[in-house]
């Protein structure tokens, strides 16, 4: 029994580190593609992983944090605050959908919600680039448009994966918290001002 277990382990234990990392990165990349072009597929749900959500959340939090503690600043989230909001929000939504009777597992739901932050992270990058230009109403309009489009994309992507797991008469109840979650993140992105 023990030798059999050891045999099974050595197949991935002896491979080079590059192989391991590339395999995980490819899985993450495949899931990114699924989010960008949402179709009804089970890949996100079947092989869930939390690497993608972690990368996205850290990127978003790094970009959203206000700079060094400056004496003239107030408000604006810190890194830890964004991180906590994202993860705590995702956990709450997952608990909510499970309590409503959904048949999705805890980590599958976290995985989907985390991966669907990808459009909003892209929006954050675009906003930061746009903010390098001259500030003004046009600047704000461009950012508003980008954030709205990405917000809609996130909602569509996550609904494509999550809606099927709920009983049909409670779909709206399960989708509304997702809407609220992405709305708050979009608001944080939209009101970001670099100092």
């Amino acid at each position, binding site marked *: 029994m023990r030798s059999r277990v050891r045999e099974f382990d050595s197949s991935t234990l002896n491979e080079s580190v590059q192989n391991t990392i590339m395999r995980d990165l490819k899985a993450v990349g495949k899931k990114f593609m699924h989010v960008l072009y949402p179709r009804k597929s089970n890949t996100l749900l079947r092989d869930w992983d939390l690497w993608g959500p972690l990368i996205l959340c850290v990127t978003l939090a790094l970009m959203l944090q206000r700079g060094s*503690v400056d004496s*003239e600043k107030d408000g604006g989230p810190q890194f830890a605050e964004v991180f906590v909001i994202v993860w705590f929000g995702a956990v709450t939504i997952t608990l*909510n959908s499970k309590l409503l*009777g959904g048949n999705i597992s805890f980590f599958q739901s976290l995985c989907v919600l985390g991966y669907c932050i990808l459009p909003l992270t892209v929006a954050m990058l675009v906003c930061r680039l746009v903010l390098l230009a001259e*500030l003004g109403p046009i600047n704000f309009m461009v950012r508003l448009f980008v954030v709205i489009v990405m917000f809609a994309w996130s909602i569509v992507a996550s609904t494509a994966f999550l809606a099927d797991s709920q009983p049909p*008469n409670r779909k709206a109840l399960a989708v509304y918290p997702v809407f*609220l979650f992405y709305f708050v993140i979009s608001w944080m992105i939209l*009101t970001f001002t670099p100092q």
Partner: protein
Amino acid sequence: MAAVDDLQFEEFGDATTSLAANPDATTISIEDPGETPKHQPGPPRGSGREEDDELLGNDDSDKTELLAGQKKSSPFWTFEYYQTFFDVDTYQVFDRIKGSLLPIPGKNFVRLYIRSNPDLYGPFWICATLVFAIAISGNLSNFLIHLGEKTYHYVPEFRKGQTAVITTKTDAKGASIQHTYRVPTACWERYQPGSGAVKTRKIRSPDPVRQMDVLGMSIAATIIYAYAWLVPLALWGFLVWRNSKVMNIVSYSFLEIVCVYGYSLFIYIPTAILWIIPQKAVRWILVTIALGISGSVLAMTFWPAVREDNRRIALATVVTIVLLHMLLSVGCLAYFFDAPEMDHLPATTAAPNQTVAAAKSH
């Protein structure tokens, strides 16, 4: 045999006629699931069934009462126990929200919508939405008020724990409008030398003056959730205590009270969004309407529960409920929304707190 049949039939008829004659009679809510269900059938179920009523009809009601009793019998450490609190469908949630928006005198919110199926979905998510609505609308409203300002002066710690922010704006006629508002002093400002002196900061318009205020939002969330749970707890305890002294016909369970409070907060969400309009009169009208609607929902729900009691205690209870509600709404809104434009003053003369600040700095 015929006599027995007649008796059975009559019993069924009695229940329906008595309920039909007195629709306002409230039934004693059976909280304890272990209690054996009463022999009389409850609200008329299979109205079409005839002879077999005695067996089938009673059996059904017995079964349903047993099932209702079994609803919450999972031990509290299992997941299924908490699932029973989320056993609502979309249309039920919408119905309950509608009920909280349109208080009809005589219709009891609990009896009409919630009876025997209180849910925690509504209260939780309505409170969450309210917190975010207040924070975001406050941000937007402040942005609109301070639009067009290029620089602002601020006096950290001009009073203990408070920083005064003085913004200057030029209006269409070319006059300078000064507007002062107070914010809590940031902790890094508090002990710096030179706090109390006027500092200047340029703001890049038209971006909002303040980004999303996470600390303020956390405070608001704590207050709203505490209100939505602790006040019902206190009220339930009070009602239980009064019930032991005065036999009340109506009694509510703790979850039903939480449910009423949660749904009654729904009206504040559109109110908070409409508070973006920076007009004082509009804001006062909005908050009065919201308070009127949700206060009346609460009052009409709890009046039947205390009506049997001593007149003064009953009135005091209802008044306290409404007062606490008002305190919550006005407090939250006042904290997040800056006062709209004050009458414009020339840049040199200032309101009293500004002169204090100016005097301190010179």
